[in-house]
């Protein structure tokens, strides 16, 4: 009986196999190898030596490393915060506006806002560096036109504004993604529910807060977790616009750039694969913890409505 069933379903493992093999080879195997590497250190004779958790202790407690690590971690947290406070609310707002039926040019706005998400980091970094450049950029001129010329500063070059500027550039690039997800989920709300609410005398504002928002909460949850994973894995934008040293004075250094600098080395600094792997593994654990916390404490409490 069982073998009969298996015979009938042989196509399932057959079609899954290629993806599984490739995924295991390039993702799971690499992940395990990287975890393994973080327990080793190259000694003076160029041999790999098992050192247990020594690399992790060094990363967290040795001042040379821990200072950089916590700086990068804090910056990463801030980077995430800006996305949560700016990108997702804006995404939600735009999605809500786009879902208004009678809005003219909806598809144009939708495409225009989503477009930057398709651009490469290199291009986005380059464009914004140019726009904000004190020498050739248009920012100062544009601000002068509205009488705010004095407000202009070389934002990417100042310690207290560089990270915020980069975070906002990243928001500009990726606001289309939460917008699309939320928009799709807003569209899936049946018209009858809205109709009923309207009959009960609710205005558009109340409908949004009392009906639509509770219904799309699970999507907002997904958006949050996607933002979290994306932000703690971020690297490209900072690398492209501020270089591997994430200047000025490491004020834009996030875990990704810290990992890159350590693993591949920089200028005279030779690469240190073991410490690099340690940072990579730490990043993996941070993301894992974040995702688990979300799953256990938020996802389970979200109510899903049968629509």
């Amino acid at each position: 009986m069982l073998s009969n069933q298996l015979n009938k379903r042989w196509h399932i493992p057959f079609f899954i196999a290629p993806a599984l093999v490739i995924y295991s080879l390039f993702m799971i195997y690499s992940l395990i190898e990287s975890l393994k590497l973080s327990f080793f250190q190259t000694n003076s004779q160029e041999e790999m030596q098992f050192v247990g958790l020594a690399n992790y202790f060094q990363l967290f407690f040795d001042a040379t490393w821990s200072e950089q690590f916590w700086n990068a971690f804090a910056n990463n947290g801030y980077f995430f915060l800006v996305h949560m406070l700016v990108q997702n609310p804006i995404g939600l707002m735009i999605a809500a506006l786009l879902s208004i039926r009678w809005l003219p040019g909806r598809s144009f706005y939708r495409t225009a806002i989503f477009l930057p998400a398709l651009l490469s980091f290199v291009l986005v970094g380059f464009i914004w560096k140019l726009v904000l450049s004190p020498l050739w950029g248009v920012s100062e001129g544009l601000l002068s036109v509205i009488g705010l010329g004095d407000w202009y500063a070389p934002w990417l070059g100042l310690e207290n504004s560089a990270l915020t500027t980069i975070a906002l550039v990243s928001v500009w690039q990726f606001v289309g993604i939460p917008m699309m997800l939320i928009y799709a989920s807003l569209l899936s709300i049946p018209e009858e529910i809205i109709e009923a609410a309207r009959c009960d005398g609710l205005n558009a504002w109340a409908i949004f807060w009392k009906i639509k928002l509770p219904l799309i909460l699970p999507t907002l949850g997904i958006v949050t977790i996607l933002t979290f994973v994306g932000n703690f894995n971020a690297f490209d934008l900072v690398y492209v616009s501020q270089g591997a040293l994430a200047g000025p004075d490491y004020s834009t250094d996030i875990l990704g750039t810290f990992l890159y600098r350590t693993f591949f080395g920089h200028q005279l600094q030779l690469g240190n694969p073991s410490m690099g792997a340690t940072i990579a593994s730490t990043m993996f654990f941070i993301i894992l913890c974040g995702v688990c916390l979300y799953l256990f404490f938020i996802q389970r409490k979200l109510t899903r409505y049968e629509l």
Partner: protein
Amino acid sequence: MKTTIKDTLRSLFCLGTILPFTCTAATTLTIESWRSDDRVIWQQQIIPAFEKKHPNIKLKFSPTSPAEYNAALNARLESDTAGDLITCRPFDTSLRLYQKGKLVKLDDVSTLTNFSTMAKLAWQTDDGKDTFCIPVASVIHGFIYNKQVFNELKLQEPTTEAEFLATLEKIKDQGDYIPLAMGTADQWEAATMGLQNIGPNYWQGETGRKALINGTQKLSDTPYVNALTALSKWQPYLAKGYQAQTYSDSQTQFSLGRAAIYPAGSWEIGFFSKEVDFELGAFKPPVPTKGDICYISDHTDIGMGINSKSKHIKAAKVFINWLGSKEFAELYSNALPGFFSLSNHQILLNNPLAKTFIGWRSKCRSTIRNSYQILSRGTPNLETQLWSVSANILNKTEQPGKAAKKLQKGLDSWYKPKLAKAEEKMQ
């Protein structure tokens, strides 16, 4: 056509002979390099000159882009697919290759005697006993300036720190030009074109550099604090928004004639000679007080070694030997103005700006960047720290005194000078 027939006949003869070792067929040597910009010069000038003299050896220049060179070369050396000749970065990057047995010891190359001890330093073991690459070129630091602006404002080439600052002040007062074309966005400019440019005059070149390695001086001592303080005085003369100004921004700023002075490395000569339509001049790093001995950063930058797995080590040695000759020195320094041969030969240069730069060698004492030998081996890396500290000082977010202490603290955390070690042993 004639040569083709001759070559064919020779290879036929070689195939037929029972003693292939006596056969003199041409061997082809591949050169690994990060100087992809120089491909044309190698192919059109340097290689033909060598092949003319040694028809049995053919050369192939096969560069990788600078950013990928170290990683790509390492991978190729590990898998035994690297070229026969390896262009060597200075100090630790190459030293590590030699220690791993990837490079041939070159002590028997006769033309090595044409180089000074300092020129060879970057490609020798710490004790100076083994040489593994022949020095090819150095770059010299100084200041390139716009002669038109200097004439217009009736300015002289400054020789002391005070004169230098007065010159900058005059340009600033006049208001049409930015006094100094430099920014801090990329950080390395502040350290390389700033600190390593003027610094040797404050720490007495080689004396100070070696004192750091021996542990007799610290980075928090007066000479280094003074060098950092001198750098901090440049801040008022940089362009508005210099904190976000990149290296290429500075180049463009100067080549468009918007700025008067460009803190430079001689490698810029080639670029500016092509891009600029005004006359260029150059002055050497100003000394702290009138009458001081002047020092220049004459940094050993490019060397050439032999892959130990090469099948043609003998032929490669012939080429390496030629790299130490006067012929190569003259050819190379003229083909690539701003990259100066490190040999002791008296050579004639055509580019006037390059001539000015190389002329300083006879007036001042040469030294190399103080973070390159030994001191950037550990973590935190001194060179990287110098980058961020120099940029911070220009950004006014760090004070020279405190910065110098931070540098020494970083070095102390992993570097124990040999002198101190010897003392410990004696006790």
